[in-house]
């Protein structure tokens, strides 16, 4: 067997966490049509805040605190582009750069932080029962539960008045201006929600890994984008609910591909290249399908021509 149960479980755990980041990009990139490049920094911020609060002895408070930090980061990005007229990509890059220092500060001016031996949300739930099954699977169960709640709330949110307004903002800017929606407001809310999910993901990664460094988030935006695109390619762009399921499935598939690559003894040094390849292939997939369809048509016509 290519994958052991443990590898698969770890892959799914990471998949659940990455789903949150992919969902964040789903909101900013797919729905609002804004390339928010502050994801990397915001992810690390979530970890830094979550870990610091956990170390301070508040394992449960860590999650909302990390989300709040994400909201703040999203607010700054949104403020730069809606009020100060900074180009959206540039706004993300600026915030991302600034966050590096902020993250260092939150981590007590050290580039590493370990929460080994501290009570965390995950260690506490794991300790609820000595059952072998529970100690093995509790992390995945907790992460899945959090993801499920977030996914359902997101799906519900995008059917409310505010959610519809946010979707319209990314879909047709002309219409939005003519229909009493303030795009500055909807963009701000959208980016705050998106980045709160990124922050939550960073926090959860920290809890699973128990130690992290300042460069934790580097390349996160590529990975999340890959998951998002895998999901959207496979599940299409129909209803919001289905799209969210697609994003989650995409993240898990991405992690499983990575796990397979690991199991196939691809050296860790080649990892970024593997990620980049997956992204490229995922993005090229719809175009590839079109090409195949055209070739088939040509082939069919040639056969017909041969008959005549």
């Amino acid at each position, binding site marked *: 067997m290519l994958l052991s149960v443990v590898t698969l479980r770890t892959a799914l755990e990471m998949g659940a966490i990455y789903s949150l980041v992919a969902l964040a990009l789903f909101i900013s990139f797919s729905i609002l049509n804004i390339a928010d490049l502050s994801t990397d920094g915001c992810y690390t911020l979530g970890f830094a805040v979550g870990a610091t609060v956990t170390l301070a002895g508040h394992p449960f408070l860590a999650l909302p605190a990390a989300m709040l930090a994400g909201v703040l980061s999203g607010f700054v990005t949104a403020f730069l582009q809606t009020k100060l007229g900074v180009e959206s990509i540039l706004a993300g890059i600026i915030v991302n750069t600034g966050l590096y220092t902020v993250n260092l500060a939150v981590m007590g001016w050290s580039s590493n932080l370990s929460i080994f031996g501290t009570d965390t949300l995950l260690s506490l739930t794991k300790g609820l029962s000595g059952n072998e099954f529970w100690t093995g699977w509790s992390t995945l169960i907790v992460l899945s539960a959090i993801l499920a709640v977030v996914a359902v709330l997101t799906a519900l949110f995008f059917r409310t008045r505010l959610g519809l307004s946010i979707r319209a903002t990314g*879909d*047709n800017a002309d219409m939005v201006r003519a*229909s009493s929606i303030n795009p500055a407001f909807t963009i701000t809310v959208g980016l705050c929600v998106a980045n709160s999910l990124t922050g939550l993901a960073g926090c959860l990664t920290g809890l699973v890994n128990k130690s992290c460094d300042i460069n934790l988030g580097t390349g996160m935006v590529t990975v999340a984008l890959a998951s998002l695109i895998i999901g959207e390619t496979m599940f299409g762009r129909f209803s919001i609910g289905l799209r969210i399921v697609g994003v989650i499935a995409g993240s898990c598939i991405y992690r499983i591909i990575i796990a397979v690559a690991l199991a196939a003894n691809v050296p860790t040094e080649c990892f970024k290249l593997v990620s980049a390849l997956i992204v490229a292939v995922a993005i090229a997939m719809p175009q590839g399908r079109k090409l195949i369809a055209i070739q088939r048509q040509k082939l069919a016509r040639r056969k017909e021509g041969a008959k005549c």
Partner: protein
Amino acid sequence: MLKLNGITKTFNPGTVNEKKALDGVSLHLAPGDFVTVVGSNGAGKSTLFHAIAGVFFPDRGSIVLDGEDITFKPEYRRSRELGRLFQDPMKGTAPHMTIEENLALAYLRTAKHQHAYFSRTGKSDRTFFRDQLARLDMGLEDRMGQPVGLLSGGQRQALTLLMSTMVPPKILLLDEHTAALDPGTAEKVLKITREVVAEHKITTMMVTHNMHQALELGSRTLMMDSGRIVLDVQGEERKNMTVNDLLERFKARVGEDLDNDRILLS
């Protein structure tokens, strides 16, 4: 209902591209007025609409809507009381959202829902949408779950019209909203426009290039040239007017022929 007092707007002031788009436009619309606006290329018809809608703020002058001075009210806040349709049917609806979601968006902007950010459409709302769609007679009531991007231009324009009048606005601005449609669809959208406006007695302004339509529709006709209103006819005078009379009057006033390459005289 709507009062414009000496609206002036100059674009790119102080540069070689300086253009006085509106030059002291004053206008008073009574409630229920249906005004058609015609004019030469670049006369300022769309610019006038943009000024009323708040796309930009005027350099001078004031705009009063139903007793409220809205001169410096931001565009999105005016939109609650102001319906707008553009020439491009793609501009008024969100293509990746379903018909129902688009309607919900338009419906939920009402005062009742203004601050209810988390309100959702219920079953009664859905029935209401269905009835409204049925009135368009385009079969859209059975396609409420489909994305708007699948509809034709005419259907999208009819839907936009429905969205901007479902909650009757104080003023409706139609900027050549049938010009990009094929003649049959244009006729249909125009018919719906007439019905909706008449039913709610909405104060309406409509830009058109069809001179015949300009005289036939509504209760008053404005002609614009170089950022000014040069002709304003209504009542008996308008009733007996032909397209030729209108063009003659324009020439007498401005000193040259109406220069519009899209004009339709029949």
